[in-house]
């Protein structure tokens, strides 16, 4: 197998593994140990060699501290607005919430890997990456808002544990939908390869409408961060301010997920340029990429589904 392809697959697989475990509040789960992401212990020689992970760890710590700082400031400003609202503080809150959403979405989860895999399976325009990013972020947040407000105002029950339970159920539904979409894409490309002599319209699902199922499948999982922010504002009797923050956070998230979408499209085009000399038929290359992406979607979706029962 070509080294480039190996590299691509490795990156996707590692990223997948990193993302699998990013779920569930340990305080509310009786089996919190099952989500442990403890890494296998490294030996001395591995540690002596400063790895990419070591540097990433340091960078990550800084990012985490920044997120914590924003969280603290947002809490402080929300309390100030409650006692003495001013336009300046609203603007500051909006900017902070945007940064919070932006940094927050850089972490695992939020369906970035699915968005990436999906976009490489199809003939995508640059704008598709942006549309998908915005779509996922909007639905991701909308599901959290609807769930939180429904539990709080209609069911009037323990919001923390109820949202956690719903989150788990919605994740399972999401994983099933994602797997089904992956299977659909897989068979589509397989059919294209088998019938390579027949004139088949290349990637029939390249319209923007076809982005809706994947955006819905990923986006229905509510974002815990939104639930926390919204409940915090409700506890301060500032529901509308909470929704205002949620809008700002969503914007930050949408920018990041869109960036990933654009990156996927750019990577796909670049990888085509690299293999250009070796590729006789662009159609076959696209179909192979499609099958690879679809396999990843199926694998990730089904494994996440089964992992959610552990």
């Amino acid at each position, binding site marked *: 197998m070509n080294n*480039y392809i190996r590299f691509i697959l490795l990156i996707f697989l590692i990223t997948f593994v*990193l993302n699998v475990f*990013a779920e*569930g509040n340990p305080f509310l789960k009786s089996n919190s140990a099952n989500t442990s992401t403890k*890494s296998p212990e490294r030996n001395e020689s591995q540690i002596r060699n400063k790895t990419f992970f070591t540097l990433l760890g340091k960078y990550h710590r800084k990012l985490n501290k920044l*997120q914590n700082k924003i969280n603290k400031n947002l809490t402080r400003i929300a309390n100030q607005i409650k006692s003495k609202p001013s336009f300046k503080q609203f603007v500051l809150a909006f900017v902070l919430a945007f940064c919070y959403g932006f940094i927050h979405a850089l972490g695992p989860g939020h369906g970035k890997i699915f968005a990436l895999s999906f976009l490489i399976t199809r003939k995508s325009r640059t704008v598709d990456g942006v549309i998908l990013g915005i779509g996922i972020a909007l639905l991701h947040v909308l599901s959290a808002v609807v769930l939180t407000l429904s539990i709080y105002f209609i069911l009037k029950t323990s919001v923390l544990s109820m949202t956690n339970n719903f989150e788990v159920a919605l994740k399972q539904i999401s994983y099933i939908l994602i797997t089904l979409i992956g299977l659909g894409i897989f068979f589509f490309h397989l059919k294209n390869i088998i019938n390579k002599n027949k004139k088949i319209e290349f990637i029939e699902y390249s319209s923007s409408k076809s982005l809706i199922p994947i955006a819905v499948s990923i986006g229905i999982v509510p974002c815990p961060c939104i639930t926390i922010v919204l409940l915090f504002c409700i506890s301060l009797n500032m529901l509308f301010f909470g929704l205002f923050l949620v809008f700002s956070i969503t914007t930050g998230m949408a920018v990041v997920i869109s960036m*990933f979408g654009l990156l996927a499209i750019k*990577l796909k085009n670049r990888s085509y340029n690299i293999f250009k000399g070796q590729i006789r038929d662009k159609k076959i290359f696209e179909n192979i990429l499609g099958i690879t992406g679809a396999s990843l979607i199926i694998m990730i979706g089904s494994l996440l589904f089964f992992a959610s029962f552990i």
Partner: protein
Amino acid sequence: MKYFLINFCLFFAIACCAHPHIYIEPSIEIIFDDLGLNGFKNTWVFDGMYSELIIEEYDKNKNRFFENKEIDCIKEKSFSNVKNQSYFNRIKIGKTKKIVKEVLDFNANIENGNVVYSFMVPCRIVAKNYPQFVSISVYDDSYYISLDFDCDGCLSVKSNKNIKYTVSKYENEKDSFYFYQIIPYEYTIKYFKVNE
């Protein structure tokens, strides 16, 4: 090719960064008594947002104070589940990992709008005339919760005249979690009994 690799690394770097949803500032007091190490007193200060959620959920009479009944409820519903993670206390006696099975004196209160949990992790190790080593770090390896064990004053010692000790802090790469992305801070306590 170069740009291709840079793009992949960029993607990887972005995708690897984990995101916690809850922030806790933990502080630990190492308790020594006449016999040696007695245990670790934990104090966890939750971030303001999550604190409001806990208050909203468990402060039933809305007096912004947790009564005993409410504390019991918090302990049962919003604390005891982390038992499976050794209450986030990663203790090593020498090189052997200790699993924390029980905690004592759990308490929850509200300080300046932040919920504070406090509890004692018993860890009795009798001091000898030669140095003994105990290490502790505090983290949630699912990384849903960020426990910043790097803050100022997050470790203190309740000393005893019969015990001499030194504390050193370092980044323990060997115990990195979240697939090597997060390197926890670890404190190693070296102590021995002083002959009178």
